[in-house]
């Protein structure tokens, strides 16, 4: 029964996301709006219901499974891919390595030293 309620939370968020998207004619995917709505909803509710945590953890842990058919679907693009394979690989290489370095570097420069703000994080480990 808990799982039903957990699924209901997710479906309701999606439903609200679709409704907002259609009403305001936004070019933002409904699932993205649904994430914002879910976080806001949890804020109002004050905690994560057990059923929702159960369902969400399952879905997040096994997300890779749901992607397999998407990746297989790239077969339909094999002509295009064979044309741009090398340039695409080069683009991915550069646009992965550079931001990895820059993002970590900026945070390390700007953030207070690690020990000072670690109490917020240790809280998470008890979740």
């Amino acid at each position: 029964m808990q799982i039903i309620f957990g699924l209901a939370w997710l479906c309701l968020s999606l439903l609200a996301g679709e409704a907002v998207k259609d009403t305001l004619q936004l070019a933002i995917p409904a699932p993205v709006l649904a994430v914002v709505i879910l976080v806001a909803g949890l804020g109002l509710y004050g905690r994560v219901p057990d059923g929702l945590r159960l369902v969400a953890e399952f879905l997040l842990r096994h997300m890779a499974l749901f992607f397999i058919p998407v990746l297989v679907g790239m077969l339909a693009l094999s002509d295009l891919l064979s044309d741009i394979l090398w340039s695409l690989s080069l683009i991915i290489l550069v646009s992965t390595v550079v931001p990895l370095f820059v993002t970590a570097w900026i945070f390390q420069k700007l953030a207070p030293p690690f020990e000072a703000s670690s109490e917020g994080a240790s809280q998470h480990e008890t979740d």
Partner: protein
Amino acid sequence: MRLTELPAWPGLEGLFWLLLTLALYRGLSMLRARLQETAWAQPLIWGAILIAALLVGLDIELARYQLGGDWLIYILALSTVSIGVPIYDNRHVIRAAAVPFLAAMCVGSALAAGSAVMMAGLLDFDAALRATLATKSITSPMAFGVANEIGGLPVLAMGVVIVTGNFGVLVAPKIFQVFGLTDPRAQGLALGVVTHGIGTAEAVRRSALIGSFAGLAMGVNGVLTSLVLPIVFL
């Protein structure tokens, strides 16, 4: 993804492909555990390669696999929404370092998408391909939807995000080591922004702190970029 359409009934053939996908995922997950969770052994990549090889080898149409495979794709929308739970869980973590967090995230995310789009322009890629690459710093289920909205190729967008994630996870430890980036929060943040779900999964295995920063960065970045991109591209 329109949620109002009913999926086609998979039938005997579709159910076979669905079961095969589940079995491969399970088998490859067990294999990865055997191999000490090495980043090379992604069940997603190898599962997709094996199925694709089977389809090509036996000359089976993609549409027939998708009779079963589509059912898993419908669950993706729910998985995406689930990202809201870790974001809510970690709201204290971000509050403790909100400004550096947001600053590093915005620059990193803009750089990842911007450098990809700029190089695509230099290499004469067409508009659809450039729009596709613009989504590369969004977690893949969201990239799928955003690519759809801004005139990119959704399937390619997810493929690029997934490849980026796998590649990033392999090179990240070297980059952090060479440049002396030892703050676990900085590592988690970079992994979350650049390598998304795959990097986040990797980060969680290293430590809960790195993992919580990665998950949060992935979620917040995904939402913010999804909100901004349609404005830039339309």
